[in-house]
């Protein structure tokens, strides 16, 4: 039984290339109505996934971006005691109804929606360690209790929940039990070619090939602080296209050009740039 969710399978789209294992994981999470926890290197399209799933299922997306100060309660509702205090001092009649001061959170919106929605809880590991524990019941039963008004909010339709994590904190076991899990692996070269083709269909094939060569070369450099990921590659390609560079530039064996053009999009700190320059220099000296 799929409940009230549309039976639309998630597959790769024109703009988002999903591997088969990701498709299976998403479809399992959707049909069993469990949250899907997605991890992976930064820049491999974790957040994009939620957008694509929403698009594939034809559902609206509610995004909840987590910061280090976010509390689980804020996703449900907040009680604005300060404005109530002020209204009380000013003699505002609104003050008698406490529900005037309940501010709805993202999950409440999702639960009360008339049609099923996709909820993205982005970067859950940024929050306090207790954050996932505070959402256990809410994600399990898709309901919560509003203490101030003595009311239980239950989801009209169980939303599809997608949670992303960058692995900065360990998530509690009880929370993991309730989720399905997928680790987005860094795409191999053929997949990467498909991703590039999906994003820049008019990219010259010679430029794409040389750019991918350079890209995977950079990723292979040992000891980089931040390896460039898919999103960096796409940014870089965009720059290359804007500048309309010929492919030969990337292949250049010119001794003065040590480092690929516009490398700022790929290497994000100066230690990495130095490291790469040094290795490129040594490689050339060894080769020539």
């Amino acid at each position, binding site marked *: 039984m*799929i409940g009230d969710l549309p039976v639309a399978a998630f597959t790769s789209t024109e703009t988002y290339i999903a591997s*088969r*294992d990701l498709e*299976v*994981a998403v*479809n*399992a*999470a959707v*049909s*069993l109505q*469990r949250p*899907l*926890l997605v*991890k992976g290197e930064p820049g491999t399209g974790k957040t994009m996934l939620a957008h694509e799933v929403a698009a594939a299922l034809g559902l609206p997306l509610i995004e909840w971006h987590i910061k280090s100060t976010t509390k689980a309660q804020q996703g449900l509702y907040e*009680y604005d*005691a*300060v404005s109530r*205090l002020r209204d*009380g001092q000013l003699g505002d009649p609104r003050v008698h109804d406490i529900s005037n001061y309940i501010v709805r959170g993202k999950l409440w919106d999702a639960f009360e929606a008339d049609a099923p929605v996709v909820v993205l809880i982005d970067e859950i590991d940024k929050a306090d360690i207790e954050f996932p524990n505070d959402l256990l019941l809410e994600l399990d039963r898709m309901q919560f209790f509003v203490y101030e008004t003595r009311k239980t909010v239950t989801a009209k339709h169980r939303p599809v929940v997608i949670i992303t994590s960058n*692995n*900065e*904190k*360990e998530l509690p*076991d009880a929370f*993991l*039990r309730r*989720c*399905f*899990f*997928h*680790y987005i*692996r860094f795409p*191999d070269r*053929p997949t990467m070619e498909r991703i590039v083709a999906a994003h820049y269909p008019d990219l010259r094939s010679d430029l794409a090939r040389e750019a991918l060569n350079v890209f995977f070369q950079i990723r292979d450099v*040992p*000891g*980089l602080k931040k390896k460039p990921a898919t999103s960096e590659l796409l940014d870089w390609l965009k720059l290359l296209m804007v500048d309309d560079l010929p492919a030969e530039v990337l292949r250049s064996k010119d001794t003065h050009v040590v480092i690929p053009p516009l490398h700022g999009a790929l290497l994000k700190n100066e230690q990495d740039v130095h490291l790469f320059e040094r290795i490129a220099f040594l490689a050339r000296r060894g080769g020539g």
Partner: protein
Amino acid sequence: MFAPFLLALRGAGLPVSVTEYLALMGAMREGVAAYSVEDFYFLSRAILVKDERHLDRFDRVFAEAFKGLEAAEGLNPRALPEEWLRKLAEKLLTPEEMAKIQALGGLEALMQRLAELLAEQKGRHQGGSKWIGTAGTSPFGAYGYNPEGVRIGQDKSRHKRAVKVWDKREFRDLDGDVELGTRNFRLALRRLRRFARQGAPVELDIPDTIRSTANNAGMLDLKLVPERHNAVKILLFLDVGGSMDEHVRLSEELFSACRTEFKHLEYFYFHNFTYERVWKENRRRHDRVVPTEEVLRTYGPDYRLIFVGDAAMSPYEILMPGGSVEHWNEEPGRAWLDRLTTHYRRSAWLNPTPEGGWAHTQSIGVVRQLMAGRMFPLTPDGIEAMTRELGR
């Protein structure tokens, strides 16, 4: 029907429970993985594994539990990239061996045999004299040929299903037990951070106090939270010289990367073992030494002491006066280690040598005994165990 699989997973240390099992059954009933073993693999992985560190272990158990099942769509010897088989053999075989091959019916026949072997071989090589990849008597294994090492799987796009997905073991470097490298550096860092922030008194939570005071219509309501910062002081003793340099660099980076998290972090270097002197700068190790006595006086017992070293040396260097390889030491090294570990109640030894090899080196055993067993491998899991020990 999958119960044995589940038990095998638990046996391999994956925290799988009945909840996940039921979820898997539910997903099967929904037909998420209809009629493909590969889809079933993806599905069970999404449901049963909750941590990327366990992916590799899962792959191994899966291969073991379902071997032979995918015969219909499994390995096809015809699809093997013959080019590299040939290249591999040409590269590895000596002229005499090539002559032997000619006697055996030529390279073609040998290729055929290799392809057959590969087809027959399920999972990874497991010893014996037949399979490829063993160091035994198989003509291929002797040259260190190993399906994982050569990575047949990378050719997947051209030679579909040349190797089963779970046999590629792509998640191996995510396993928490492997040696510390750049990949799992962040993981170790996270554990150390958590270590730095644990155990602390409480402090006043001002926003919460204001909020609950407002909730109480102006009656003051104090709220307290545990203080989480800068609780831990660390004293790092690093073994330098020879094979240790790479590991020392790694551990230095590791600790300094989270130095803001520690209240204090001090480094000292030593060579092979602790004696009456240590130093702070490697370049000036001979003229700028710090007496170990002074370290004991300067840094109080509330510091946590962490040694990083391979502890591989002659036992004399630990147990005898004058045993040091660099200078004449009046007292045996173990006296100094005893002094340090008595002064610093919480201490541990991180050893970059893989744990499996500890038993083979006598001095490691001695140091371990002197440290009362508090020696941990320099892996994310080892660091976690160490932080647990030191955090007690």
